[in-house]
């Protein structure tokens, strides 16, 4: 079904970014409000998109009205709509927090922020492998700027690693894309999926290599072990609103793995079916373990939050690695939970760091905080969600994943790793909470008390997490519908390849 709505989530942040560039040196209030307004409007657009795809239709937008395998298409199915909505909500909270002062010097911050949103939404909605590369580059280039925003030696050192690694990733992506195009003659993902099913036997090896090369690139973005080492430095040293926004960045990699895994190397792909299957689950479990070790060893709360992002990336890919629509649905629920919880923790770490004076957010005993009880309460709420304790959303997410692994061959490993690491994460967070709030160092001096308004954005994120618990039933059902849609790519293929100018509904 042809729909102009699909391109709106791209155009909105792009236009906002361009207008912000043109506004140049005008009053900062104007630029901040424009950025906020655009981000809030994006939530409305994403909700509308979600409602339109809710009945299972796959919306397609052909740029320039060129029919599918020849032109560029944007495709919105349930999965893409969920991702766009999560991004929009997260971006709104990060933007709200950033206008409280985290965006200084804010001349370029909001431009980069909007362009990052443009890249993220593009990556979720594109139906073309080369455009996936282009949108990855858009979001990466914006993220380089955001990561380095504010400067400072630690940030630049971590930024250099991040930039160089991602450039190598881009080069590998191009090699994979080139190989697939050279052998199959198309880059449209739906068209690729059809042609992959009938690859000539002599080309199988090369196609397999290209598919696994793509997997390496997405694994680098998703911070899958052993390609996760860039993440703690990059996320742990950047400014809080940026780190919160980056909580969705590893999910872009996970989304790309899921999309390619289910569409191109899905059950219909003949000899190439389940190409990633032997790799995904073991690597994901190793990631969870590696991240947990980092969580235990962290010296600062923001670093701990960064390692928790690694743990959550591993848990998420564990769900995708188990396979089957139940596990995909569990993974999608966990994805929503972990994005908001991680972002909330990054923002809270920043609020705490500013309130604690010289000790900043280092995990050592510090001054008694003037509004300590409020901060401790918010920390407890977020830590319970992150650690996966009932009754918050983390518990439901992990429980769904464990339930989905029942009866699968990897079940003992999934149970063992997820349960033990959950316990260790809870212990680490309990230790952090004790050090931050209960152990008082009489000599240390707290800085100005945290402004209650600063807690707004983390609290909104925590409330979204509670909303995830309250509406867990319908959300999980939507996730299940999205997973079933993924596991039966027929509708997707038909919508993309047969949608001519008039619009043919699947």
């Amino acid at each position: 079904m042809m729909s102009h709505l699909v391109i709106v989530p791209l155009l909105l942040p792009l236009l906002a970014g361009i207008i912000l560039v043109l506004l140049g040196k005008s009053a900062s209030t104007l630029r901040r409000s424009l950025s906020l307004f655009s981000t809030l409007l994006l939530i409305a657009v994403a909700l509308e998109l979600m409602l339109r795809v809710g009945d299972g239709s796959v919306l397609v937008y052909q740029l320039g009205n060129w029919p599918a395998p020849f032109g560029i298409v944007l495709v919105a199915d349930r999965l893409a709509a969920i991702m766009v909505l999560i991004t929009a909500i997260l971006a709104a909270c990060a933007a709200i927090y950033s206008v409280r002062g985290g965006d200084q010097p804010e001349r370029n911050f909001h431009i980069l922020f909007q362009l990052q949103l443009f890249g993220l939404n593009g990556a979720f909605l594109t139906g073309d492998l080369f455009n996936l590369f282009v949108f990855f580059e858009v979001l990466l280039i914006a993220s380089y700027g955001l990561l380095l925003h504010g400067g400072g030696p630690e940030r630049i050192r971590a930024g250099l690693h991040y930039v160089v690694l991602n450039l190598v990733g881009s080069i590998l992506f191009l090699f994979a894309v080139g190989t697939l195009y050279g052998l199959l003659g198309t880059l449209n993902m739906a068209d690729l999926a059809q042609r992959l099913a009938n690859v000539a036997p002599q080309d199988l090896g090369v196609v397999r290599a290209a598919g696994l090369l793509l997997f390496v690139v997405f694994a680098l973005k998703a911070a899958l072990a052993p390609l996760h080492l860039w993440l703690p430095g990059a996320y742990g040293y950047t400014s809080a609103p940026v780190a919160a926004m980056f909580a969705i960045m590893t999910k872009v990699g996970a989304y790309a793995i899921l999309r390619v895994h289910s569409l191109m190397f899905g059950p219909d792909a003949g000899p190439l079916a389940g190409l990633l299957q032997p790799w995904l689950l073991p690597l994901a479990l190793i990631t969870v373990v590696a991240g947990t070790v980092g969580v235990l060893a962290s010296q600062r709360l923001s670093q701990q939050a960064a390692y928790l992002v690694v743990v959550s990336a591993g848990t998420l890919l564990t769900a995708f690695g188990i396979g089957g629509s139940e596990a995909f649905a569990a993974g999608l629920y966990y994805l929503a939970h972990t994005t908001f919880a991680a972002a909330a923790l990054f923002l809270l770490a920043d609020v705490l760091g500013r309130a604690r004076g010289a000790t900043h957010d280092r995990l050592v005993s510090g001054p008694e905080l003037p509004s300590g009880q409020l901060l401790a309460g918010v920390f407890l709420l977020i830590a319970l969600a992150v650690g996966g304790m009932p009754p918050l959303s983390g518990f439901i997410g992990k429980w769904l994943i464990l339930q989905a692994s029942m009866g699968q061959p990897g079940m003992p490993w999934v149970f063992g790793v997820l349960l033990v690491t959950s316990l260790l994460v809870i212990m680490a967070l309990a230790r952090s909470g004790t050090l931050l709030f209960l152990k008082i160092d009489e000599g240390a001096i707290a800085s100005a008390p945290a402004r209650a308004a600063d807690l707004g954005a983390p609290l909104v994120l925590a409330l979204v997490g509670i909303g995830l618990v309250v509406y867990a039933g319908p959300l999980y059902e939507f996730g299940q519908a999205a997973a079933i849609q993924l596991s039966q790519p027929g509708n997707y293929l038909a919508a993309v390849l047969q949608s001519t100018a008039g619009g043919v509904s699947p």
Partner: protein
Amino acid sequence: MEALLSIVIGFLTACGVYLALRGRTFPVVLGLTLMSYAVNLFLFVMGRLTIGAPPIIREGASYADPLPQALVLTAIVISFGMTAFVVILALLARAELGNDHVDGGENG
């Protein structure tokens, strides 16, 4: 011709990987540049090598695949921009960290 091109691409990639694994930022930047040259050539060759054929489909006539040329143009623009960015970033790191080691110091 194909063999020569594949050897060139392989050699460029090998040099690029070697340089990218060095400890100082300047060789790393050069390595990334060489690798992006290699991948640009690779993308270009993926449309197969044809001589004297127009990039327009006409009935009966042979044609050169125009898509890889468009792809490689995009890739060149992106890699050119990124090279400029990473050069500036390396200079910034040199100024902020006091040396040009990728980790900000031999022991760091």
